[in-house]
């Protein structure tokens, strides 16, 4: 909180501020409004006083006596309008509706109507100060109160239930609820496709300059064990070919300080990364530090991003996520000390997430990060790779927090972690991992088995499933290999 002095003056201002406070439903926003406005006002007052102290003449003039308080009020209203505009919905119509609903004082509404003319308002305020200082005008001083009252009376004369646009000074709500700030598009569609990029309805732009081919996706969805270890590891349904989820990675490439003078070197680094990724077919997408999205391996094809990995949703278990999940790589490092993602990457990541989720109907539950799915079947430990094992901004991507979800590797297949892993992930496991370990114990207890015995059984089962996944992959790899050979002469698809 900002420390503040002069509680007496505050009482007066607080009354004004209070009239607007109830516009803010959320406690923290109301607190911030009250706190900010009053603190800033006290600040302004102090500054003005300090300044006036240097001009004793002004202070002695009658003009000063008469208008000092009004000048302060004017400042206050300016602050209030500014603060209100920061926190209320962005659409003008919405705000007015809110104001009317909440029976805000007429003055508040009028101030809103006039917010568009705020620069004029500021200029007027400034002019007022100038006039005051020069002492040129003593008869017709423009004051906040007069404008306030004048407009207020005028506004209240017009019919308040009249919702037609075009009434003087008032913009009414015409925008449907769809366009409110929190609106999330259900469906994102391709707006245009050019030679080297695609543009989507949510503003996302995908560069196809580095696009390349790999083998077609092919994977089985495997059943949950549901605590009983004798469930047959027979897959649910047929071989699938569509992406089932999104998996986020870090490139772990070198990062230059993100400043304007490094501009070209940053781009050079990115090009190096993109070429490497294309050569190795490492990911389906790369998002560079300027927020440009590049498609590398086409969506319907598997990229080599996940290695040994496992994840699950309500339908079932996915083993070997190269085949089933789309790999999205951010150009950044896990140990990036200052900021891991640039603002541009956050935005681009969110847009790409929307595009892919919309196109393939991907569930929130299937959008996860590499570190949470990566396993090492040799020693049955999790976190073989640990990119994004913490700090991934799920919320910013419009996703729920997967650090809270118990990884199936631990809870069903009996993978574990050790002190080394704990140290590598920063000293503490994410909550889901901890919960999953307990869950596995619970299962063992329910099955009347020692945890270690169940662990042995489940590891065996995991190996079977890995084998199954390998087979499904091999068949399709062969197919695509041959079909690609046939396609060699065709132009690459767009």
């Amino acid at each position, binding site marked *: 909180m900002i420390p503040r002095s002069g509680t007496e003056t505050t*009482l007066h201002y607080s009354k004004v501020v209070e009239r607007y406070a109830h516009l803010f439903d959320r406690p923290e926003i109301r607190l911030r409004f009250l706190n900010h406005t009053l603190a800033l006002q006290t600040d302004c007052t102090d500054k003005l006083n300090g300044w006036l102290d240097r001009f004793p003449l002004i202070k002695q003039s009658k003009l000063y006596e008469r208008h000092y308080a009004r000048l302060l009020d004017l400042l206050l209203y300016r602050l209030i309008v500014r603060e209100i505009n920061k926190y209320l919905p962005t659409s003008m119509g919405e705000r007015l509706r809110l104001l009317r609903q909440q029976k805000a004082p007429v003055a508040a509404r009028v101030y809103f109507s006039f917010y568009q003319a705020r620069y004029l308002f500021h200029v007027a305020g400034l002019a007022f100060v100038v006039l005051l200082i020069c002492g040129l005008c003593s008869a017709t001083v423009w004051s906040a109160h007069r404008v306030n009252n004048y407009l207020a009376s005028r506004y209240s004369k017009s019919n308040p239930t009249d919702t037609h646009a075009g009434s003087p000074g008032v913009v009414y709500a015409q925008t449907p609820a769809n366009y409110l700030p929190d609106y999330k598009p259900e469906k994102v569609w391709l707006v245009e496709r050019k030679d080297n990029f695609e543009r989507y309805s949510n503003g996302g732009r995908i560069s196809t300059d580095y696009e390349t081919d790999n083998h077609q996706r092919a994977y089985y969805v495997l059943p949950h064990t549901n605590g009983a270890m004798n469930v047959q590891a027979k897959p649910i349904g047929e071989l699938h070919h569509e992406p089932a989820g999104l998996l986020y990675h870090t490139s772990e490439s070198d990062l230059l300080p993100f400043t304007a003078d490094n501009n070209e070197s940053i781009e050079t680094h990115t090009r190096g990364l993109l070429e490497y990724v294309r050569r190795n077919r490492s990911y389906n997408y790369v998002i560079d530090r300027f927020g440009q999205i590049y498609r590398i391996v086409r969506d319907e094809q598997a990229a080599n991003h996940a290695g040994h990995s496992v994840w699950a949703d309500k339908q079932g278990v996915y083993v070997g996520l190269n085949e089933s999940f789309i790999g999205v790589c951010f150009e950044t490092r896990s140990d990036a000390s200052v900021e891991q993602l640039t603002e541009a990457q956050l935005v681009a990541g969110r847009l790409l997430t929307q595009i892919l989720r919309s196109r393939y109907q991907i569930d929130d539950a299937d959008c996860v990060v590499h570190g949470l799915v990566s396993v090492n079947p040799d020693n049955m430990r999790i976190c073989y790779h640990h990119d994004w094992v913490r700090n991934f901004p799920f*919320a910013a991507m419009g996703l729920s927090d997967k650090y809270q*979800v118990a990884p199936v590797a631990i809870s069903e297949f009996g993978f574990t972690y050790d002190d080394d892993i704990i140290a590598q992930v920063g000293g503490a496991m994410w909550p889901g991992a901890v919960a999953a370990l307990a869950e596995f114990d619970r299962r063992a207890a329910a099955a009347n088995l020692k945890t270690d015995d169940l662990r042995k059984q489940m590891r065996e089962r995991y190996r079977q499933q890995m084998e199954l996944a390998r087979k499904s992959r091999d068949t399709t790899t062969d197919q695509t290999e041959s079909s690609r050979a046939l396609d060699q002469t065709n132009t690459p698809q767009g």
Partner: protein
Amino acid sequence: MEEKNQMPANKVEVPLPKSGAVGLDIGTSRIVAADSSDSKLTRTELNAFVAVPASDMIEQVLKQKHMVFERNCKNLYVYGNDSDFFASFMNVAARRPMRDGLLNPQEEQSQHIMQLIVQRLVPRARRNNEVLYFSLPGKGEGVNGKLVYHQAVLKNFLSSLGYNAKPLNEGQAVVFSELQDENFTGIGVSFGGGMCNVSVSFMSMPMITFSIPKGGDYIDRNVTEVLGEANSTKVRLEKEEHLDLSRAPKDDLSRALHIYYEDVLQTLIDSLRAEFSASSQLPKIDRALPVVLAGGTARPAGFLQKFEQMLVAGGEFPIEISDVRMAKDPLTATARGCYIAAMSEMK
């Protein structure tokens, strides 16, 4: 966003903060973390520990029971929520890293243990400058000098976890969580284990803050002493489970509890009067103020009525009181208030 876990609902032990703002109530008895204003989503750890000489056998047992502990070359420390169970299991009294609202100077392990407990509730910050408000007692008898140290140690430690850590008066936190409709104008009182904290707030600004060095522990300690009990556990359990301040006491124990409860309340009300008369810089408050009561010690049946009675019994109050009410969830009010303060600073 819908959340579709692939697992049956899991009890998650140490959720990460969700919004980038955290409130932390660091009390003598319990530490409470809030990263949402919903009281169901707060997390609590007992601010206590049990130390036993290190032995492999005990360590095995602790591991089997999934207890939270730490081992150094000499001792095993069971801390946080498990300390209660382990203390009764070992038939010893749990120890406290804090005493009377501040770090306990008599416990050499106090800082280290508190850090372990706090880390269970709030792991590292995920981003730079994540704001965390932690509760701090107000000035008062026997507190003043130590407060500076207490605050600096906590701030230091929380900053090392990556938070932009700031202190918030505990009474003020109660105001933030409970008096939104009054535009954060009113009196917040937190009746804790180690002390009671009061803040008189006007439009979100603390005008008067102070603490008294009496609380639940004071009641336990004195009742135990006057009744000649061996330890305070029995007294505390009776107090927490059966005490009803609206009924006349039936036995010695409840009589003694009544007496010390009244003592705590009287001290608090007297101090409040005294602070009002002493403070010269108060604005003329133009309205009646609500009083909100929170904290573990405020939980017995009849507490609210008792407070009201005693307030009235003392004659005219220096300011007008509109009503006295209980916090929605007295045990988490401070943490939630800290969270609101932290949220209010989010960009």
